[in-house]
């Protein structure tokens, strides 16, 4: 059970959060078809550091950007979304 430090709520157990998607696969509403295919189906599946979108669903509900290691589960950074990525 990972410990994620929500910028609003402080350190909370992973059970309060929901993994949403890799930041890379966020698709802008005006994306092209090719971009949609690339982001949805041809994205990286990194063994190592990864930028991920999580949501503190059972807490304040905010979406967060995590820099997380997919093997060691180290979390280097948790930040709020400033603008559309």
């Amino acid at each position, binding site marked *: *059970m*990972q*410990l994620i430090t929500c910028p609003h709520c402080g350190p909370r*157990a*992973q059970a309060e959060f*929901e993994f*949403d998607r890799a930041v890379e696969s*966020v*698709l*802008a*509403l*005006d*994306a*092209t*078809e090719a*971009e*949609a*295919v690339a982001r*949805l189906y041809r994205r990286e599946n990194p063994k190592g550091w990864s930028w991920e*979108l999580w*949501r503190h*669903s059972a807490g304040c*509900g*905010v*979406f967060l950007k995590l820099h997380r290691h997919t093997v*060691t*589960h180290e979390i280097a950074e948790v930040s709020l*979304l400033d*603008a*559309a*990525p």
Partner: protein
Amino acid sequence: MTGSRTHQGGIIDRNKTISFTFDGKRYQGHPGDTLASALLAQGVVLFGRSFKYHRPRGVMSAGVEEPNALVGVGTGGRYEPNTRATDLFIYEGLVAESQNRWPSLSFDLGAVIGLFGRFVPAGFYYKAFLGKPGLWKFYEYFIRRAAGLGQPPVEPDPDSYEHRAAFCDVLVVGAGPAGLAAALSASALGERVMLVEQDLVLGGGLIRDADSMEGLPAQAWITKALATLTERGVRILNRTTAIGYWDHDLLTLAQKLVEPGQAPEDGQAAQRLWRVRAKKVVLATGALERPLPFAGNDKPGVMLAQAVRTYVNRFGLTPGAKAVIATCTDDAYKTAFALADAGCEIVAILDSRSESPSEIVKAAVARFKVRFDTQILEAAGGPGGLTGITAEAGGQKLQLSCDLVAASGGFSPVAHLHMQAGGTLSWDEANGAFAPKTSRQNQVTVGAASGVDEANTSASGLTPPKAVDTKHSFVDFQNDVTLADIDLAWQEGYRSVEHVKRYTTLGMATDQGKTSNIVGLARLAALEGRPVPHVGLTTFRPPYTPTTLGLLAGHATGKHLAVIRRPPLFDLHTEQNPLWLPSGYWMRPRAYPRNAETLHAAALREARTVRQGVGWVDVSTLGKFEVAGPDAAAFLERVCATTVAKLAVGRGRYSFMLREDGIVMDDGTVWRIGPERYLLTSSTGGADRMSHHLAYVRQVLAPEMRVAIANVQEHWTGIAVAGPKAKTLLAQLAPDLDIPRHMSVARSQIAGVPVLILAASYSGERAFEIYAAGKDIVPVWQAIATQGTDHGGCAYGLEALEILRIEKGHVVVGGEIDGRTTPHDLGLDRMLNPKATYVGAPALQRPDLQSSAGRLRMVGLESETPIPEGSMLVSSIPGTPQGHVTGAGQRILEDGYVALAFLRDGSERLGEHLVAWSPSRGAKAPVSVVDPVFYDHEGARYRD
């Protein structure tokens, strides 16, 4: 081997006696005794039969690593199989039995396998039954009877199990000298400390060795340490095993509040699972002694040297009268002195090392017969105990008579938690042991767990004598894996340690190879001529020791497995004694049968009432979201795939939402309830997903929009009133109301309760959804029921709802919207917003999603016989499936059966004749492919 109690010594309470039974026979022991020590003290030698060969087995160890002495304990639902007799403290009334023997432990028919020497080698089952599936089916019954451990209990477990969370600055695992010292120094600094110990008593190796510490006798020092720790507020948990080390310094602890099979006091839990988040973790988990590889090393009477010392010093008993010590470590010499002091004859000490200058060896040479460069080849004996051993020294054989062998093959630091935490190990060639090297998490390892004292041990215990009989030299005692099995696996080309493990089952028993893994690895390394670390290690997986499923489940059993949500009208429904159906987390009425009606008859009567008069249904659980703000319409055009912006105030429309990949996610209605206020509904089961999706669009995709979202699913509770008489009924209920036309919003009062009315139809009849705030809905339902009954109406449930919507050709989430269908597949593509501003629009441009060729498209099916739900569509039986039925029903007012289905290229195949076939139900129906709207195609009935 005949064990007996010594006259004094140990930390058992000799003033009190506990009586228990083993295999039906009554025995006595003292508080502080394990089942193993109590039985050993009364001369019991044979504890069980082995997994595969039914070899007689006694006690090997004095701790959780025990692979041999496994018993079933308790009765009825409290029966626990495969419990280690060495990790089970006796209590009054304990009932234990041996396992894997028939008809009895002393006369076991399965042991004939062993008598004939027909050992089943590694991979036997794979080879014997490869390509002969019929043969396996025939033999499986006998093989499963012959091989195995204990039987699981069949009755439900009567006990309860608790889960608890805790936090601390320092968590110390293991209360031996190193763990106690760590807890003392951490608590001296004012840290919040937790100390956990799997044993009943604290002290670890101090109790076994009865050494002195800081000038005090072991027991006195432990007592003093315990007093200091208690005074400093350290939380000390005994009988508590740290079973798992997870991410970010979270550990799970399994605490036994009573012993296995023991009934807790009324209202008390049997076990407790702790989740502890620690700032720092100190692992003081000690080291485990390894057995020596020689023929018959599994026989009753062959024990680990430290375990023998534990029985002497802690439990006040000698497991035998004439002992041979076989060792590659100095540590086993302590056992020789302890045994001799307890009155046991030391026949010889056989040391595989050359003469050593260490003090204890010199002292032993002066007192006992010590032979260096000598290894045991074979132990002789049977179910009754050992008779002697054969050893080898410089090519010379040596026979010794004895009833106990205390063997020490070196030590393996307990690095399980360290490895679960992501640490690394380094190989200590001199001692033949892996020890913790680097840590990933905030954790240190101390004491014997951090490495073996170099001066006192040797790796020579990992190398068996050349002349050894490998077929009878056991490596993994619990799974009956011998040196010969590992050799065979290697000869057959297995190189990866993970493959050898699975092929031979080395280390795969419930002890997870605590005593066997390193011995097996060393054998593999020797065969390959490579150092042990190059062979690799298998993964250390939690739990460290076997854990009951009840502990993991905690309270989440039976009706507590998942939450049940009761809608506000639940009590009113209950009065009508409906059939219930869980829908998402909600309990919803499926039908309201009258006079012993079947579900089907009740649903059909209810549906007919809706078609001919009026019916009302609880729709409280629908997902509902209020979206407000200057950009609310623009926001909804991101979420909904249909147009929203043109909606006039007070009007609503059907809509659906897509996932980012262009597949339909959910559907519902969107209502403009104010100039900048909208109400969006979704399916009951999809409400949580929709809530997340709205937040995603709001926060991630359109953060610039001025819009607020409120999840009002449980705020608005609702009733749908449907049927040709619905309008009349509503006019009576709300006399001042200007009845809203189809897809319009109105506000009024019914039974004095303010209500929001949405004129929407799911059934195909004129209908109104009437919403009120929470429990306020109750009088509204009562008013509708009272006046509606006068019109010949009735309440209807989900089953009638289903028949009605199928006949009308409406899709449902979970039925037609199944995570694979596009708007085109569902025939909804004409409703798509041409501006394509919605989520899913980019991916929906993919040619494969646009073209209908080869895709499953929604169609209707008609038949004169019932169409099996979930059946496949074929041209003839048997045939290649061309589609499937998603919702089957019937014509409500006429004869005939109808269904919604998906058929390849379906929309171009109207008029075809197919068969709906369900081989699993043995049902079929000839069907014709038609348009999916079976009733009121023009939609005349729900408009005024």
